[in-house]
């Protein structure tokens, strides 16, 4: 990971300003909602490929996406998508598709009607709109459900309808706000494969996600956001390294946490052990959870411990962020 600069994601050299027409550019962009900060002084240059916006709730991911698509306006700064600004919707949205998080659809519409209708608004004639709709539904594996009402769809199916709608006009830039939400594991894998295919064909995909291992799997570049600031951006490998280094915290509910703590500290991968306030549990931070669980299996019979439960406490994104933005080795703004 590197510090936030004007460098592009995925490690390429920043082209001169005149060539920025081929990039997605944020120049000193700030957005305030009244006195509340949305994002502050964001400078980004995003190249083709999959760039993930990663950050906890309220970090500014959706704000950045809404700014890029003109749904909201920056308080200051300038945004350019392939040389077009969000003030030129009639040109921009021929190139850009946005799969937002808004889970709403026109009442009573089927998946096919929904997609075809908005393609007609784009200006496509009916036969072309119909063909593009068919292709888009096929890409997200919704052909069989195409003529069912969206209101009867599951959350995952609705997510796929929105995705189909955003890619139906074959945009060059695809902005996806939490696109994997609500999808089952198989559908996630299929959609990630689709994203990969689109990126390999030269598209720009800007994806927000909470799920780090998915970000790791699919992204070329990562932009890490925290409290409205870009705290780091760079190649996904940097983030992967940081995640691997990040200690996992596990809570063991047991009858003799002090004895367990003493025993666990004999092993180097135990970073920290802290007894729970009710003295009936132990928080353990470890860098190697697999080794830790093997160790625990040995220690329990040795110490004759009565174990109530063993569960990871904070293997969520927030914990990783806290680690990344505060540790010495992690990226800083």
């Amino acid at each position, binding site marked *: 990971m590197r510090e936030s600069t004007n460098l592009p994601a995925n490690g390429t050299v920043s082209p001169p300003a005149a060539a920025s027409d081929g990039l997605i550019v944020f120049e000193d962009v700030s957005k305030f909602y009244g006195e509340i900060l949305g994002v502050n002084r964001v400078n980004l240059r995003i190249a083709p490929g999959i760039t993930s916006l990663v950050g906890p709730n309220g970090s500014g991911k959706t704000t950045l996406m809404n700014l890029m698509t003109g749904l909201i306006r920056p308080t200051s700064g300038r945004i350019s998508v392939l040389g077009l600004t969000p003030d030129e919707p009639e040109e921009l949205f021929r190139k850009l598709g946005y799969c937002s998080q808004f889970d709403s659809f026109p009442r009573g519409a089927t998946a096919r009607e929904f997609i075809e209708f908005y393609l007609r608004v784009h*200006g496509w004639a009916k036969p072309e709109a119909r063909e593009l709709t068919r292709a888009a539904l096929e*890409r997200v594996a919704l052909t069989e459900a195409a003529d069912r009402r969206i209101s009867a769809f599951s959350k995952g199916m609705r997510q796929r309808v929105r995705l189909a709608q955003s890619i139906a006009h074959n945009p060059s830039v695809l902005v996806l706000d939490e696109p994997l939400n609500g999808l089952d594991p198989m559908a996630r894998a299929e959609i990630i494969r689709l994203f990969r295919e689109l990126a390999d064909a030269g598209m720009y995909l800007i994806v927000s996600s909470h799920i780090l291992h998915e970000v790791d799997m699919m992204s070329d570049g990562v932009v890490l956001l925290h409290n409205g600031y870009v705290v780091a951006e760079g190649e996904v490998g940097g983030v992967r390294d940081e995640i691997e280094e990040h200690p996992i915290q596990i809570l063991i509910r047991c009858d003799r946490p002090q004895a367990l703590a003493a025993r666990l500290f004999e092993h180097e991968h135990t970073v920290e052990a802290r007894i729970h306030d009710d003295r009936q549990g132990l928080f353990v931070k470890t860098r190697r959870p697999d080794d830790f669980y093997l160790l625990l299996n040995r220690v329990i019979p040795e110490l004759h411990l009565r174990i109530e439960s063993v569960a990871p406490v904070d293997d969520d994104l927030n914990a990783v962020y806290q680690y990344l933005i505060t540790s010495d080795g992690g990226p800083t703004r």
Partner: protein
Amino acid sequence: MSSTPEIVNQTDAANTARTDAARTAKASWALWIRQTFAILNLEIRKNFLSRRALLLYLIAGSPLVMLTLFAFFRMGRDNAGSLNGLNTAFAAIYGGLILRTLVFFGCAWVFMNLFRGEVIDRSLHYYFLAPVRREVLVAGKYLSGLIATVTLFGITTVGSMLLLYFSVYPAESARFFFEGAGAGQLLGYLGVTVLACIGYGSAFLLVGLFFRNPIIPAGLLYGWEWINFLLPPVLKKVSVIHYLHSLVPVPMSEGPLAVLAEPTPAWIAVPGLLVFTGLVLVAAALHIRRMEISYAGD
């Protein structure tokens, strides 16, 4: 999941964008008309078939139901006295009920919901994410509202007049409409209804864009239009109802307290209303070009 053979290869996205922009500019009018029709297609369906349309049907249908009941029970013959009496009676029904109240609130309901309803339904962003000029969006939505209100309140106007006249004096009314001044009056009232929808429609579209809760400004506007008969002549002209009243075929008595003013001639009233509508729509289009979408709190 299928493969994606049809994905456009983005070798020089910027050049493609510029080429497309140039092509779009050349084909603008044809494109805008296609887009307007596409928007009309969905919006008309919403205006006529959605759950929100039920209130519109209720508003537009209420005088027809009342006059049908009136016709059924034959209650009015003695009170009306003559065709002239019916002319006065219908002028009062039209001016007091249909125009001032039903058309007003019907237009408020339809036009304020054109954008406001989409914000509540959280679906406006689909339009904002389409490559469509916001002015085209305003035009498409406004036309759809106009088609809905003109159709329904046109039927209300024509149906009410015919029901009233034919239920009381069938033979005389037939002569009045087919040989006398009846057809002219009918078209006159219909024209005023159309103009009311045009004028009020544009005003309420704008109100729906600016106010999170448009009921209050709509109520204030309703009050202003209602007290128009009490206002001095100069202020009367700052209203839609004054121009509409100037155009009705049979002037409605506004009561003993009314401040009298010369009606505005049709050659000023009609273009004046159209110019007012045009200006309001331009304001709406300018506003919507800068409009942000934040569904929070809606």
